[in-house]
């Protein structure tokens, strides 16, 4: 994993003007935000250009190493991926040690562990090694590396401008979104993926920049590749809603397939890593040879990302048994390629497997139920989303991804249904998502965005209770307040001040007010008031206020000043304890 240089000072390294963050804030308070947005556009454009270069490199290498269109029986299908596998392994071992893997976890690690730091060397290594591996026919895709290339580029660029550490950290996901958007030609999916899988929340601070970068990169990519969606399928007209059952079956089968794929990867990768160290450099070569053998003996379609094959499947060009064979062989080939440590992504293989499986299921269903109106292409398309939802575990992205790569909104209902089923089934059978499994295998502990999404957040209403302290009006005379407090079990009183604000009065303050001879208790109080807190706010938001206030009144949102209850620090802590006990 990426480790920034120990001596690196990200703020002072690239500029002779040495100013602290505080000084910078003093002389140019709006600079950070403005630069952040401008740089987001630059990062988007640069990422788009880099991804275009990356994709062309892959295609050039494919033509040079495998021929313009690989056919079974060509010897080069055996030796090209094997030799390039060896070359890539050597490059990774001696020059680019951080280029292993898909790029998703590496980007997350950069964000959460290394303050957004990805070295230029890592970015370059990812570019070269992934292009070589995918171009030579390893069963991997270019999207995840594009994501890391984008993130790396953003990291390199942002380090050369003096921005706050927090902003530097956020540039990695901005670049990641740009890289992925250009690779997929799908800005919404890229934005959603980064939010669902990398950042984990809809932070307004970074959302604008992510959108700007993603849109810029897609504009650049479309200038070269065109604006056409990746795949074309006919419109899906659900004449009979019962046909959704056919898609539901696909969702279930896809969910099971994604679990199988995940478990195979989760088993083979550590097994290969546990082999003697001297074998590690040979593993990509052997994986390449095995993948090449699959191509040599009849199925060259499984080599490389396979977008053209997906397109053929969507045109209904394969029979169901060929589609099923391709899905199974792709699972094997991708597991071999990825587990061997060959750099490359999992997105394209996931889409490939899903499309083949979807096509196969659709074809079989149409044999038994010929009245089904959906084409094989529509089942293949839904299958892509299903595997994406079940394997990558980003349900929202999976839906939008299908819509964006096909430019076809008519498929929305089947996609939502099948993806949800696959997601729920995969999650129940394999609770830990594959990227988290891989993270643990790498010895890291990155936040699981799936867990973050489902984390039950405690609210103030969960710890709220009725007050024992007397409630007095700000207009009451201090002597009256002191008398009320003496009768009550609490040493505090809640004062309802003008403007429906509250003040928590201690016994000492009450006595002091009485001695001062003030007409009303409010006139003897300082200007400060308890902040307005509402029952639906997160419980954690109450914590900072206990330094100043021993008791926090929580008020109704609709009726201004109406007291709903009070919170004490002990209540809050007890609430957290109960919650933890409840989680087991």
């Amino acid at each position, binding site marked *: 994993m990426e480790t920034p240089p120990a001596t690196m000072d990200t703020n002072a390294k690239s500029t002779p003007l040495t100013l602290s963050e505080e000084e910078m804030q003093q002389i140019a308070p709006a600079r950070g935000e403005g630069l952040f947005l401008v740089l987001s556009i630059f990062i988007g454009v640069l990422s788009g250009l880099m991804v275009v270069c990356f994709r*062309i490199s892959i295609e050039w290498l494919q033509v040079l190493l495998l021929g313009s269109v690989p056919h079974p029986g060509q010897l080069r299908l055996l030796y090209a991926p094997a030799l390039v596998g060896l070359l890539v392994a050597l490059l990774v071992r001696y020059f680019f040690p951080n280029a292993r893997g898909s790029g998703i976890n590496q980007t997350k690690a950069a964000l959460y562990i290394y303050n957004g730091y990805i070295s230029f060397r890592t970015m370059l290594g990812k570019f070269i090694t992934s292009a070589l591996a995918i171009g030579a026919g390893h069963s991997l895709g270019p999207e995840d590396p594009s994501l890391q290339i984008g993130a790396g580029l953003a990291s390199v660029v942002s380090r*050369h401008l003096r921005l706050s550490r927090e902003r530097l950290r956020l540039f990695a996901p901005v670049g990641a979104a740009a890289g992925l958007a250009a690779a997929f030609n799908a800005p919404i999916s890229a934005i959603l993926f980064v939010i669902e899988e990398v950042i984990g929340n809809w932070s307004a601070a970074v959302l604008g920049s992510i959108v700007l970068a993603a849109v810029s990169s897609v504009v650049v990519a479309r200038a070269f590749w065109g604006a056409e969606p990746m795949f074309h399928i006919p419109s899906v007209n659900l004449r009979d809603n019962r046909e959704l059952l056919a898609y539901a079956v696909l969702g279930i089968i896809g969910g099971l397939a994604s679990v199988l794929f995940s478990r195979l990867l989760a088993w083979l990768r550590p097994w290969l890593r546990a082999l003697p160290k001297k074998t590690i450099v040979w593993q990509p070569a052997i994986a390449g040879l095995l993948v090449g053998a699959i191509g040599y003996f009849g199925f060259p379609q499984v080599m490389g990302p396979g977008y053209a094959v997906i397109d053929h499947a969507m045109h209904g*060009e394969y029979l169901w048994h060929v589609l099923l064979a391709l899905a199974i062989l792709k699972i094997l080939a991708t597991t071999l390629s990825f587990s061997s440590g060959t750099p490359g992504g999992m997105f394209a293989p996931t889409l490939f497997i899903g499309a083949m499986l979807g096509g196969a299921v659709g074809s079989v269903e149409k044999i038994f139920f010929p009245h089904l109106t959906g084409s094989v292409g529509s089942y293949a398309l839904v299958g892509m989303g299903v595997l994406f939802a079940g394997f990558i575990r980003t349900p929202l992205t999976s839906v939008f991804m299908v819509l964006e790569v096909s430019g076809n909104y008519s498929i929305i209902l089947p996609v939502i249904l099948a993806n949800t089923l696959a997601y729920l089934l995969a999650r129940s059978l394999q609770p830990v998502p594959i990227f988290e499994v891989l993270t643990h295998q790498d010895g890291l502990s990155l936040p699981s965005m799936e867990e973050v999404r489902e984390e039950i957040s405690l609210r103030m209403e969960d710890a709220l209770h009725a007050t024992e302290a007397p409630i007095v009006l700000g207009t009451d005379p201090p002597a009256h307040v002191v008398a009320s407090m003496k009768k009550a079990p609490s040493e505090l009183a809640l004062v309802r001040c003008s403007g429906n604000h509250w003040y928590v009065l201690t016994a000492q303050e009450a006595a002091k007010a009485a001695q001062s001879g003030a007409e009303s208790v409010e006139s003897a109080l300082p200007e400060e008031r308890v902040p307005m807190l509402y029952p639906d706010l997160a419980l954690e938001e109450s914590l900072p206020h206990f330094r100043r206030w021993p008791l926090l009144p929580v008020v109704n949102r609709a009726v201004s000043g109406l007291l709903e209850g009070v919170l004490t620090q002990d209540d809050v802590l007890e609430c957290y304890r109960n919650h933890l006990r409840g989680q087991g």
Partner: protein
Amino acid sequence: MAARGGDGHPWNAVQRSQRRHLMVQDGIALLSLFGITVALAILTYFFFSSFRVHRQILEARWYERGQKAAAAGHAADAVEDFRSALALSSGNRAYELSLAQALAAAGRTDEAYAYYSLLRESKPGDGLLNLCLARLAAQKNNSAEAIAYYRAALNGDWLAEGVSRRREARLELAAYLLKQHMPAQAQAELLTAEGNALEDPAVMNKIAALLDQAGFQSDALTAYQRTLQRVPVNSGEALQALLGTDRIAESMGNYTMAARALERYLNHVRSVAHPPESSSVAEAALGRLQRLQALALSPNLPPHQRAQRLAHDAAVAHARFATCSTQQLALMLTAPGAATLTSLAPEWKKFVHPSIARLTASQPMQDELASLIDQTEIWTNKLCGAPTGENALLLQLATVPYRTE
């Protein structure tokens, strides 16, 4: 008013200097970034262009191979070649269309159908796509879809030669409707096509043949007549129209018209010294037609002549009746219909030797005898086999009575 910093206090001289310095630095950094972006864009453009050119060469090569394979009738090879071309140029419409055509030619109807459907998504008004889909739907015995696609093709966009391509599509639709036993719809299409094809004699002949096939002989005859009005008699289309006229006129009982058409045909054939065998068949047919006219009881004939002709026909028919009755009696009248034949015997007794004078004088008697001749020829044909000679001609007149123009 002095500029203020983030904390609301005015900047001092050092801070202003630092701020200027920072702005210059940021400006230089952004300019450098812009320069790098432009340089990378240029590099990417050349990289992309070089690859695109190379790929265009490759895809053109695969496409050419596919076309050659398709032309040689190797549809399966063509499919692979076109697919390779498409792998290098995804979304190329010409390649996609060729692949779909190759798939259809290779008998992979479902795949071709799916492919055409996809292509139609982006151009639903494409005439050729709709026509291809109609043909595939027809192959799949999906007549509703086939007819819908044919109609979409008729209303579709054909770019060049739209009129003639639409007309061909309409004729194809008419032929398909005929196969589907929908003659009325076919007639409507053919009459529409005829209206647009008056200047094209070959198409008119085709329309006439289809109208004839649909059972609309009068319309077919009109179409042939229109061809004959527009082309010189020595043209191939005119000869075809004359033969068509002969065939239809004869089938309608208009033997005079049929004979006249055949005479015109023979006049031309003889004049350009066609091989004798091509005219001998026509000459025989003409002879038959002339004989039919000689036997036919035209209402235009003078009463005496008609009576004479009736007497002659009666003699021929009666001889056939006598022979056939004897055969049936030998078989003990067991054949179905034999009783009907024997029931004609009392009728014949009335007309064994019909008097020409009486026949000439009595129109009802003429009609009765004519009817008896027809019945005799029909029943003897059923019971005693196909007749020959004049009996065959009389049978034809019984089934297709003589009509005038």
